[in-house]
C-alpha cells in the first residue's frame, strides 16, 4: 500500500500506473481537485494543513481496513498539504481489484471516511475573504464532549 502526505505535486499518473498488476481487472481512481468556486464565491486557492503524524497514521489504518473490508488487492492514498491552486490534485485514492464492484465501493468508502475522520483542514481563499470550510463534521463517536457534558 502506498500511503503518503506530501508537500509537493501528487504524481497521479505515475501512482495509478504503479497500481496495476496481473490479477487486477479494475483500477478505480478518485482524483480530488481544487474547484474554482465555493458557495457562489470565486476561489483563488486553498491552504491545506494537517495534524500530520496522526493524519498519516489514520490514512494507513483506512487503507488497511479497505483491503480487509472490501477484499481489494491494493490501495494508494495520497494527500497534499500547503497552498493548492485551482485544478490541482489535493487527494488521490486508487484501488486495484480483481473486479470493479469492490474497487468502486472501496474507493468511495475511502474518500468519504477520510473526509470525516482524518485530521486535515482546508482554508478557502476568495477574492473577498477566507473561510475554514467545506468538509464534513466529525461523526458523533469521535466528538470529545459527551451529550451530558456539552455546555
Amino acid at each position: 500500500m502506498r500511503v503518503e502526505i506530501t508537500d509537493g505535486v501528487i504524481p497521479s499518473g505515475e501512482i495509478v500506473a504503479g497500481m496495476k498488476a496481473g490479477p487486477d481487472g479494475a483500477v478505480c481512481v478518485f482524483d480530488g481537485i481544487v474547484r474554482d468556486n465555493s458557495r457562489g464565491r470565486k476561489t483563488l486557492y486553498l491552504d491545506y494543513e494537517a495534524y500530520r503524524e496522526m493524519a498519516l497514521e489514520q490514512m494507513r489504518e483506512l487503507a488497511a481496513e479497505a483491503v480487509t473490508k472490501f477484499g481489494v488487492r491494493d490501495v494508494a492514498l495520497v494527500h497534499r498539504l500547503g497552498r493548492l491552486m485551482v485544478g490541482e490534485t489535493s487527494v488521490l485514492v486508487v484501488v486495484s481489484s480483481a473486479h470493479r464492484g469492490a474497487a468502486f465501493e472501496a474507493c468511495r468508502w475511502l474518500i468519504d471516511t477520510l473526509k470525516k475522520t482524518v485530521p486535515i483542514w482546508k482554508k478557502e481563499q476568495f477574492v473577498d475573504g477566507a473561510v475554514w470550510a467545506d468538509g464534513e463534521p466529525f461523526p458523533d463517536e469521535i466528538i470529545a464532549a459527551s451529550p451530558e457534558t456539552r455546555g
Partner: protein
Amino acid sequence: MRVRVLYFGVLRERLGGSQEWVGLVEGATVAEVLNVYRERLVDFPWDSIAVAVNQEYAKADVVLEEGDELALLPPVSGGLERYAG
C-alpha cells in the same frame, strides 16, 4: 502536571499559535482541558470538536498523564463561516 496542547485550523488562528503547555491537577481529564479553552474562546463551538490524546481520538472522560500530547481538532464542516480568520 503538564500536558502539551496542539491546535489546528481555525483554532490555531483564533488562539494565536499552534501549541502550548498547560498545567493541570493530577488526574485531570480531557474535559478539564476543554474547560480551560472554553473560557478563552467563549463563542467557539467546543461541543463539536474532536480531541486526540497521543494521536488517538479521545472522549472527554479520558484521564491525562504528565507529558501527554493533546490535540484540539476543530470541525471541518461548512458551517463555520462566522469563525473565519
